[in-house]
């Protein structure tokens, strides 16, 4: 019996000629795991395999040591799910829906509590068809938490939410994880948010996990050659840096900031290199810092793949 919440071994799944999962392996400890990858990488297919909605062509997947091909009631009773495009009955109200969904689980959170958690108390008795897209997303999160799950799978949980809503959802996820020891598997395209909430990251490309580990370690590993150069004029700076040997990639990131990717040799004396470059020009060089964001890491990995 392993301590992993999720354990996927060499799973392959094809749909016709399209190979959605190609020998994917993933082990998830109790944590908040962010699953990132380009469109069509296999994120949603993996979630469906984990829920037992589709059977892999080969390999095995288990949640809490239960094989996912045996989708018994007990097994699903410990999982909450928010699909990318969930269905909600248009004529029911959030309160009715969450009450009915709660009764499907052996343990449940009351509808009023769930609504308060996700900020939908005022819309509790409005018909679901009259809710905005953002409110429906919150409702989706609420129904994923209805059964006091031990693992929650969230596919794009913050899409259609405004910035306040996204903050609220992320804070809620972190709170629930800390208080209730609930693990989360989150897929999202908004990498800055995953950075705030996740402990672990797994990168999926072409149906394979290409990288997995702690967020900080991965970001450091893949962005040690990535820097932000602050200067008085980023456009002019970019022109100068473009043709410089040792600089692999450069792009403007604001009126005063340019992001560069350099070769490992360049890293050691990067500040002096840059000072030399701007010497004699009308650009003022203010400084350079290692950028190290999840987005940078993702761009680098996708670029290589």
């Amino acid at each position, binding site marked *: 019996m392993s301590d992993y919440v999720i354990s996927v071994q060499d799973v392959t799944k094809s749909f016709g000629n399209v190979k959605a999962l190609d020998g994917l392996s993933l082990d998830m400890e109790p944590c908040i795991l962010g699953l990132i990858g380009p469109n069509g990488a296999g994120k949603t297919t993996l979630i*469906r395999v984990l*829920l037992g*909605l*589709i*059977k892999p062509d080969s390999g095995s997947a288990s949640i809490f040591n239960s094989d996912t091909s045996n*989708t*018994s*009631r*007990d*097994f*699903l*009773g410990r*999982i909450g*799910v928010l*699909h990318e*495009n*969930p*269905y909600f*009955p248009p*004529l*029911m109200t959030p309160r*009715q*829906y969450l009450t*009915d*969904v709660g*009764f*499907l*689980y*052996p343990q449940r959170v009351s509808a009023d509590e769930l609504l308060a958690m996700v900020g939908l108390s005022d819309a509790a008795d409005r018909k679901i068809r009259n809710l905005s897209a953002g409110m429906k997303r919150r409702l989706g999160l609420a129904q994923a938490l209805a*059964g006091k799950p031990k693992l929650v799978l969230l596919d794009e949980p913050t899409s259609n939410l405004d910035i306040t809503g996204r903050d609220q959802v992320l804070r809620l996820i972190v709170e629930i994880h800390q208080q209730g020891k609930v693990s989360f598997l989150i897929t999202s395209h908004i990498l800055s948010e995953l950075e705030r909430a996740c402990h672990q990251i797994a990168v999926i490309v072409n149906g394979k996990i290409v990288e997995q580990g702690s967020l900080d370690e991965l970001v450091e590993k893949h962005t040690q050659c990535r820097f932000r150069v602050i200067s008085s004029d980023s456009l002019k700076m970019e022109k100068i840096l473009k043709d410089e040997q040792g600089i692999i990639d450069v792009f403007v990131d604001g009126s005063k900031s340019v992001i560069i990717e350099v070769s490992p040799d360049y890293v050691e004396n990067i500040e002096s290199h840059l000072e030399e470059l701007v010497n004699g020009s009308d650009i003022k060089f203010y400084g350079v810092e290692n950028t190290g964001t999840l987005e940078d890491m993702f761009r680098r990995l996708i670029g290589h793949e």
Partner: protein
Amino acid sequence: MSENQTRKFSTHRLEINMSYPFPTIVGLLSLFIFVASISLLNLPDFDLDIYLPIGWEPIVVGEELARVIRTLTTRAAVASILNSFYISLLLIPLLIAFNFALSFSNGQIRTLVSYPIEKRDLLLVKSGVLFILIVATVTLGGVFGLVFFYPFTIDVVVLGQFLVPLWITIFLMIASCMFIAVLSRSAPVTAVGGIGVWFGIYVLLPLQSIPSFIVNILYPIFSAMNYVNHEPGSPGYFLGTTSINDVLLGCGAALALGALLLYLSVLVFRRLEV
């Protein structure tokens, strides 16, 4: 209701609230009340007369009177449910198309099977709830019409002889349309296929080449009507004389066929990728 009982019927409750909101249920009930009542108000009046010649025989005429009273009773019972049944021929495939087949493409099935609901239970609950809804509304509509417009003709035995085969026919229709829905996972195919199959059979019924036992199995309601009310205009009249054994065997076979179709639907549904 205790906590365990509430949880036991949680799937049913969710299905009713999700697929058959209040306006649908009241609409169906009103429709069948309306249809049954109008059918009763326009009951055919042929063959309801008796003749008393000079010097009539009391026993003979008395029997004739009893016959016409029986004719009116059975005719009213038939009228109260027959047109509602014809509407069910359209309604059942459409309801299954929109409440089940369509739910594959709109994400409802994917959402529901992500909850702790067995696929088998999900399909059986969807079929069961629809069965109870149609049976209840058709029966209530018919009984309501009889109570209002023909209260003195209500014979529980006669009504029972129609209602049980009617319920079995509805069960068979639901099972077959569910099977089509599970195989096709398409709302248009389910609607067209279901209506086509059942209306097609109905249109072909009077053809002499179809053996009567096939009719008894597929439409137990018609063989029951023919058994109780064998007269021109009765939908099963072309069957000739129908015995009680024909009706019972037909009902039993229809039940078995419906159960088999449901079982096959569950088997297929469990293996479906969602």
